[in-house]
């Protein structure tokens, strides 16, 4: 009863054709558009990228890191993409890459040179790994707490704030682990720098 090419043409082909159209419409349009509609109604902030503002203007997303240069800002991690939000790619440095060794060595030297002028006691061994390695996303919004504490000396000096005040700001913008256990804590660089601007100084 199921045999032969006749069965294939009479039964399987029409059924498969209808299935392709039906599944595409239901799973490919109805489902994502319904989710989009509900998301826009119930979670409009998150669904549109968790934007953050300064001075009434949107200056970025709290989830997407930005590159910060200059001595008056906390610096984000190195990025393979210069913090591109529309053409992302991985760094792809192998564990045994000489190029990678040279890049890390150069970043390490630059980091120590910059921060040491504000904190004489800083040594190379104290530099946390996240400060000189490229992230996965290229837009890592966070740095480690150790990284932020080292940079705090520079920020305090340049912005004429007390170190204690800067450290309070760091704690205020440190995201802990989700539910207290999942993931790693990190300091949100964009939100911290916005807080610095709001605190004045510099």
């Amino acid at each position, binding site marked *: 009863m199921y045999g032969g090419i006749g069965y294939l043409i009479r039964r399987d082909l029409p059924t*498969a054709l209808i299935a392709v159209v039906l599944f595409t419409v239901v799973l490919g349009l109805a489902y994502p558009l319904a989710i989009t509609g509900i998301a826009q109604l119930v979670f409009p902030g998150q669904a549109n990228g968790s934007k953050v503002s300064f001075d009434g203007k949107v200056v970025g997303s709290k989830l997407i890191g930005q590159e910060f240069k200059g001595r008056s800002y906390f610096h984000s991690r190195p990025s393979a993409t210069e913090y591109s939000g*529309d053409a*992302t790619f991985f760094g792809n440095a192998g564990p045994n890459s000489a190029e990678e060794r040279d890049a*890390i060595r150069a970043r390490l030297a630059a980091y120590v040179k910059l921060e040491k002028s504000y904190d004489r006691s800083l040594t190379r061994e104290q530099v946390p790994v996240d400060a000189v390695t490229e992230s*996965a996303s290229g837009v890592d919004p966070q740095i480690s707490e150790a*990284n932020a504490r080292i940079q705090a000396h520079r920020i305090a000096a340049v912005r004429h704030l007390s170190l204690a005040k800067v450290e309070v700001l760091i704690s205020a913008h440190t995201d802990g682990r989700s539910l207290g256990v999942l993931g790693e804590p990190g300091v949100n660089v964009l939100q911290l720098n916005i807080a610095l601007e709001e605190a004045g100084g510099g």
Partner: protein
Amino acid sequence: MAQGWLQIAIFLAVLLALTKPVGLYMARVFTNQRVFLTPVFGPIERFTYRALRVRPGEGQDWKAYARSLLVFSLLFWVALYLILRTQGVQPFNPQGFHSAPWDVNFNTTSSFITNTNWQYYGGETTMTYFSQMAGLAVQNFVSAAVGIVVVVALIRGIAARSGRELGNFWQDLVRTLLYILLPISIVGALFLVSQGVIQNLSHYQVIHTLTGGTQVLAQGPVASQEVIKELGTNGGGFFNVNSAYPFENPSGLTNFVELLLILVIPAGLTYTYGRMVGSQRQGWAIFSAMFVLFVAGVAVVYIAEMHGSPAQHAAGLNTHAFAGSTGGNMVGKDQRFGISDSALWTAVTTVTSCGAVNAPFESLTGIGGAVPFTYLGLSEVVFGGVGAGLYSMLLYVLLAVFIGGLMVGRTPEYLGKKIGAREIKLVSLGVLFTPLTVLLSAGVASAAPIAKQSIYAGVNPTGFSETLYAYLSQANNNGSAWAGYTGFVQPHAPGNAGAYGLSFTDLLGGIVMIGARFAPILFVLAVAGALAGKKVSPAGLGTMRTDNPTFVFLLVGVVILVGALTFFPAILLGPVANGLSGRLF
């Protein structure tokens, strides 16, 4: 560090706790019983059968089942290829993307039809929202469902007491989509949005940053695709950097949930199996074998990544953990995941055929990187892809029964059914087809001068790893990459102007994916057909038990033996050479 182990332990505990309820639920779905969603989806189910002109309950033998599956997949291949070719005239294309070259489209189409999700394209620089939603995400549902129905057919073949029928392909497909994949996706997508995964159809947004620069933020209907990407063990990222990108995976919590979504069906299916063959111990035996291999890999990759790489040590970086710093190999890892969540992700996505990435493999330490290689070398039987993992593992179970039978000198028998020459031939073909495809295609690609342009890292162990992994991943329908390897040369610029495909790499990969997906499926269905008609003989004193630790040990041994004998030399040349030599290239 203790914190990292704790997170891994919590994950394993939650997975273990979910296995029974999810497995039980799926068993009810596959035995066509009422479930708690029947009042909601029952009318849709009946409407779908009428629309498809399917008579539910009408059984198919293995050939009819396979034919329906192949016709359905072939038509969907054509539909997806057409969608990818016609991007220029599509709605939901705010960025005005054109189509990628035909050879890249061939590869991508083959990739998504086969549940592989190997990506020779960057999502946010290539794909329209229409292609993502109506093309790729549809396949994330459908290819996953196809994998699941195949294992259901095999289970029915093993459990059958009479007749040759394996069930009805269309009915299994519809019930899998309607009662398992779609409801979990709806709930999961909304949860992900609440945590920060984006879901919109907007134009990419130009941001004037705090320091006066500009940053363009890619947008899109991400959450609805992210959830089924994980749940269906697909792995194809909406964005090029996949689940590392904060709009796909913004926090430790979403990371945890996404990992659970990946493993919940493959783990639950082992319970479903026990239920449907009438002995939970059989299901737990298979679960145990998978679990042991999984935990071992998680531990190896986590410990390896806690130490830095030779390049970092040579640069004078302190890779020890201290207060406020994770330490370890943080190249290619985001701060919110750190070492432990990135390591767990690496193991979860390579035991399953998920292929989603939150930390690029090429940046892993040598020994850490050997773990994904090993899991793929074991042919994705450790949990594996939805459905595909269990049906591949069941082939290994039959192989282990056969070898065990030879050892004790009795006719091999599984759940009362004698394993004859025909079955064991089909099992061997099913087991060996994928590894053979890998070695042949990786060999050809290593030898062919034309394939060199696909390699990023150059002619060294890392470059060899890229090539080998590319074909391991495509043949096992995983989709993760040793990321430098490419079939689509695209300038690092927004938009896809000027991009071109590398035909050799694209075509070879596409053919490998299709072959290594559908050939084993046919072998599996043939085995199911052969077993379905067999008489069941009662277990006697001399029957080898397949639900005790001895058998689990034998099964793990057979899996490792086949994988190791096939791939050990090749893996030595790649990641292990990196890990042991410490030489820089």
